[in-house]
């Protein structure tokens, strides 16, 4: 069984895991995801940042579009501030809900979110930084 990304051009894994954002050629502002049209160049976004805000999704989002697994398990989502780039909205993983707080150091990872045929579909997520106590 192999793993496939949830969509092309959302994140890359080679040589290392990074989100693919866009940077406007004139305003130099960053956006995520990379817009299909417009004057943007593709850029790899920083893989580490700090938690800007968060919540816990206690009820199952409507499915479709949500790739629901049974039974539904509540999950955390948040915004992570990536220094010098932007603030990205993301699922959060490998963290107890009660440990979430604004300013928590986070790093990029992937999570499984269902299957397409025989393939495991993966999306991006953020988890608390492995380098505990380290600056973001």
């Amino acid at each position, binding site marked *: 069984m192999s793993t496939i990304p949830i*969509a092309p051009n959302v994140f890359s894994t080679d040589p290392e895991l990074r989100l693919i954002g866009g940077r406007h050629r004139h305003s130099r502002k960053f956006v995520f995801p990379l817009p299909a049209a417009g004057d943007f160049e593709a850029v790899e976004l920083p893989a580490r940042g700090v938690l800007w*805000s968060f919540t816990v*999704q*206690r009820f199952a*989002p409507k499915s479709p579009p*949500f790739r629901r697994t049974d039974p539904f398990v509540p999950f955390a989502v948040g915004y992570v501030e990536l220094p010098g780039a932007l603030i*990205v909205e993301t699922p959060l993983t490998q963290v107890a*809900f009660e440990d979430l707080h*604004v300013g928590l150091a986070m790093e990029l990872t992937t999570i499984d979110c269902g299957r397409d045929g025989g393939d495991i579909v993966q999306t991006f997520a953020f988890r608390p930084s492995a380098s505990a106590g380290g600056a973001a």
Partner: protein
Amino acid sequence: MTDVYIVGIGIHRFGRTENLSGLDQAEFAIHAALKDAGLGWPDIQVAYGGSDAAGKADTLVTQLGQTTLPFINVLNGCATGGAALFGGCGAIRAGDADLGLVVGFDKHPPGAFDPKPQDWGLPAWYGEVGLMVTTQFFAMKLRRYMDQHGITTTALGRVAEKAFANGAHAPHAWRRVPLDLQTILNSPKVNDPLTKYMFCSPGEGGVALILASARKARQLGRTGIRIKAISMRTRPAGSFEVFAPSLDLERGGSATEIASRAAFESAGLGPRDIDVAQLQDTESGAEIMHMAENGFCADGEQEAWLADGRTRIDGELPINTDGGCIACGEPIGASGLRQVYENVVQMRGTGGGRQVPRPVRTAYSHVYGAPGVSAVVILQC
């Protein structure tokens, strides 16, 4: 600026009405407003109206009468009612009509709203991973705000407690049973830090207002309540809105702040001149944040305001006197006009158990809708 007067108001009660469509509830509200104004449908020269999910307002002419009037449909999310009123006022100020109708209505199925990524210009994966949920946005805007300005979950509970207490006295409200603070705080979490009783529910209802030019209002002997100012604004750069996969590091203001400043400026008034306010309360935290965004207090002061009961019916600035969206539910197209309806009731002094116990001469209403639209109306008598 040419004055516009509100000479009639009508409402179909909010909540659930099984046998009536959204359009039926709009028709009910229109007949009530016409009766209130002492007018008939053929007197109306222009109409603005809308719903988010219950049909096209202009089809109402089938039931009301095919008088061939211009009838403009409006669709601006939760700000639909405010946008319709903005349009109706414009037509009367321009001299195109002396009498106008503004109507908002809706009928949503039970449960959270069900937006589609493609309708919002978002990729399919955004919905697949579970981010296409409006309540997450409210919770995350609030969490950030609470962290920055020292707002507690108790304050969130107090807003809902006040909403249910006020709604109990509003015949048009959906939730009419008071709930105590502990019940609200201990109810199941929906999106932390918000619990079930801190959120409004999608619902049903209809509201209609009859607008008149100064000349017509004098003729009708109805110059009691006029629209002192109305403003509507879309979001500025850097605002934080629903369904945003990323945000600029450089944060900006909100559509609410801009609409509020514009309305106060146009009215030549300030927040201290307001006797009663209806503020968009999609959830408890929205009311708290909107207190500051509309200029009524500084960020963080809400904690003390709520602890002191300053926004209760008998407080110095009563807010959401009919229980707001939390007690009335949220029929998207109708809520903005419900606020104006409630302000007219308060100014007429006919609020019964929810009547503000001192003269209401200047009343403020504010709606906010996705993805960043706000309208503010200031009434004066």
